[in-house]
């Protein structure tokens, strides 16, 4: 009998630890990753000819990054590693993977999806201008290419990444004009009990703010974003916000990094037909998992930020746990105490996640109240007003949208290259407010293959 095949998608902390665990059980997993190198986003490797040290690249997380990279190097010969490969569809027990213009169907017995997260964004008037990046994008430019997104950058949004990226820019010598946080300072104190579940992380967070202040970076809390001004030739020229005091301020800059926490990359879980649930803490949809990372679909496991935003340490634990659960379900004897230990770690981290969501809440009203002329969907250039115009029951003289996929059909919001991964969260808030219903009631945009744009020149393998 052929050996059971385990496929892991994603070579970040969750995927690598899952692979390590599978290898330890004497099996050879397939590890599929979109990137050229392992490490995921957080432990992204720089191009070969770059010579920055781990300390330069990863700061306080350098030891973890080194450990992760070493772990991967040790696994290389014992796994079937497929970099620069896009898992573009999942169907009938097979993952379809495109690489160099070829698509291959890979059958699996167990599938571990560790696809990570991308920025959760709230549009602001003018965010379609050149020079506006997501926080994650700004970080990648720096980490991978040693480039800043601009000479004078404003970082706006909320969440730990806002401070981390700003501090990394400042440390690298870029001019950070201001850090504009939509969360009020008091919300941080409220969240303190939950944040104390990971005191080390809490201290790191506080240090980031202190670093920024020491470097003279202006930080404002409780801001309301108003507009990113600029023109079609030069792109971004300034950011305007209303401060907590009510005063309106304009910050001149040539680039903006924008982000409000992360959102899970769930299209593959969607295509695998996993069930989803609405997370009231973060006001977003996550695929359902049990305490040991099993999805609602037999044989499919979800680990890391793609299923719950716990950060890199949480991803490592979840990757190990998902792999142990998969091995156990295959009838292989695994260490129950280890599974118990990992489950407990994840529980602690989930408490911290709740704390972060309280300290840096998703400012849903900012999204819901966007002016009618603000572009929400950048791929299709759809404004907030156009989304609102789709509402109302046909039977009562309305256009007919009572949920998000319907608004998409009528307005094209979320129909572009990104399939609503960037505009979807804000679009759902806009729609819910206009309909006067809780945001979970408008649903979520369904993921459709291909997960990312796929060249028509792609050739399939022989059936």
């Amino acid at each position: 009998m052929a050996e059971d095949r385990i496929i892991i998608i994603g070579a970040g902390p969750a995927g690598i630890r899952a692979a390590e665990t599978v290898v330890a059980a004497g099996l050879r997993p397939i590890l599929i990753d979109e990137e050229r190198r392992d490490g995921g986003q957080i432990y992204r490797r720089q191009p070969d000819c770059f010579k920055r040290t781990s300390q330069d690249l990863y700061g306080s997380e350098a030891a973890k990054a080194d450990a992760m990279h070493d772990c991967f190097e040790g696994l290389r010969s014992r796994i079937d590693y497929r970099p620069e490969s896009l898992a573009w569809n999942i169907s009938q027990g097979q993952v379809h993977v495109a690489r160099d213009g070829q698509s291959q169907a890979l059958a699996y017995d167990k599938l571990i999806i560790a696809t990570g997260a991308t920025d959760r964004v709230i549009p602001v008037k003018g965010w379609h201008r050149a020079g506006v990046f997501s926080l994650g994008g700004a970080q990648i430019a720096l980490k991978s290419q040693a480039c800043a997104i601009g000479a004078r950058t404003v970082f706006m949004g909320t969440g730990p990444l806002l401070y981390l990226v700003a501090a990394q820019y400042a440390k690298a010598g870029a001019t950070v004009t201001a850090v504009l946080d939509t969360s009020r300072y008091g919300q941080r104190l409220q969240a303190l009990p939950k944040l104390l579940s990971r005191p080390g992380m809490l201290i790191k967070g506080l240090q980031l703010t202190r670093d920024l202040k020491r470097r003279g970076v202006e930080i404002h809390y409780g801001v309301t974003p108003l507009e990113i001004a600029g023109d079609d030739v030069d792109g971004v020229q300034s950011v305007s916000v209303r401060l907590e005091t009510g005063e309106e301020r304009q910050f001149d800059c040539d680039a903006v990094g924008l982000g409000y926490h992360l959102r899970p990359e769930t299209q593959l879980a969607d295509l695998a037909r996993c069930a989803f649930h609405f997370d009231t803490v973060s006001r977003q949809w996550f695929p359902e998992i049990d305490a040991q990372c099993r999805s609602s679909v037999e044989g499919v496991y979800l680990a890391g930020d793609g299923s719950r935003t716990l950060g890199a340490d949480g991803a490592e634990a979840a990757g190990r746990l998902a792999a142990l659960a998969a091995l156990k379900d295959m009838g292989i004897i695994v260490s129950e105490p280890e599974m118990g230990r990992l489950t407990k770690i994840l529980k602690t981290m989930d408490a911290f996640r709740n704390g972060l969501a309280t300290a840096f809440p998703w400012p849903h009203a900012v999204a819901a109240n966007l002016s009618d002329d603000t572009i929400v969907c950048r791929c299709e250039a759809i404004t907030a007003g156009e989304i609102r115009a789709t509402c109302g029951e046909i039977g009562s003289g309305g256009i007919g949208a009572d949920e998000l996929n319907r608004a998409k059909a009528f307005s094209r919001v979320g129909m572009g290259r990104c399939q609503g991964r960037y505009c979807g969260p804000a679009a759902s808030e806009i729609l819910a407010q206009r309909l006067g219903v809780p945001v979970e009631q408008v649903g979520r945009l369904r993921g459709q293959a291909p997960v990312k744009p796929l060249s028509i020149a792609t050739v399939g393998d022989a059936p």
Partner: protein
Amino acid sequence: MTQMSADVIIVGGGFMGSAAAFFLRRRGRSVILVERGLVGQQASGVNFGNVRRQGRFLPQLPLANRSRKIWEKLNYLIGEDVEFLPTGHLRLCYSDEDFAVLERYAAEARHHDLDLELLGKNALRDRFPFVGPEAVAASFSPKDGHANPRLAAPAFARAAGRAGATILENTEITAIEKIGEDFEVTSGNSSVLKAPSVLVTAGAWGGQLSKQFGEEVPLVARGPQMAVTEPVPYALKPVVGVYSKVTEEVVYLRQVERGNIVYGGGTRGPAYPDLRRSYVLPQHSLNQFQQVQRLVPALKGLRTIRTWSGIEGYMPDDIPVMGESAKESGLFYAFGFCGHGFQLGPGVGDVMAELIDRGRTVTPIDPFTIGRFANRDDSDANASSETETRRIA
């Protein structure tokens, strides 16, 4: 328990039901349209958007012609733009043998008021330089075109609503009974709707309803395999499709003014009407990639950004069920349009409204009677060759 009554209850808010509701209101009939989900959500909303007459079953052309006349004035009629573009429809083939079929079809279509232009290899390239080298000839239908299926059925339903029809979305039907002269339709929220006439326009679910009246039909649900590319400058005007006996070769594409190229075709995918789900199979996407390049090689450089499917009802003879029930007076059907109902939508609505209002229609629809399935031989061995000639690109 609430009660409502009307002249006609329409069950199923797809394109056919919405258009019928609109045209019944124009004839002064009161209408309640009941839709279990949302209007135009299934086959009506997910199809390719072909407003094509050429290639149709010849006895269906009078209906298609009537529909085409309505398409022409649709914006004016329903007060909304559904992106109808009469850009022409190009149907090409890869063999002389297939071209002979297109030639025969063109000769016969002329008798049904459909003029087609036959283009040999050189004429085809002069006129449409973007077609691939394998195409040997084509048939061009200058007055066919395409429209936006996401918009069409809801636009009709809104127009019907403005004209006074009652539109009930998210309303499941639990029973239809004939009590005396009236039908009583019970819905999930326990309201009772009464009317002397019922029109079943329930698409792939139509067979479940006709069965309740002792008229079982061999309907099979399948999913169209649709996809769209990223946008590029608008240049490809006509709808382009393939005529071939090889199912995998039969793909079709169109460019919308926004710039995206919408394409579909090949083998259909699985559909699950009970779950209201259907899927695009990856192997079908990969086949389409190949066939689309064969059709228009320049598209090789594009990327596909999304695929989708929906639930369509297919009949074994590849033509719909349309007309009055053979068993119950006052009961009418228009469903099972076998993946080619979009062009017919306005015409079907108009014809069914006429039939219900006047008891007859000037447009022949006899071949589509549900009675053709009564006492039929289920082995159905002879149907395939006839079906083949009706297969359309």
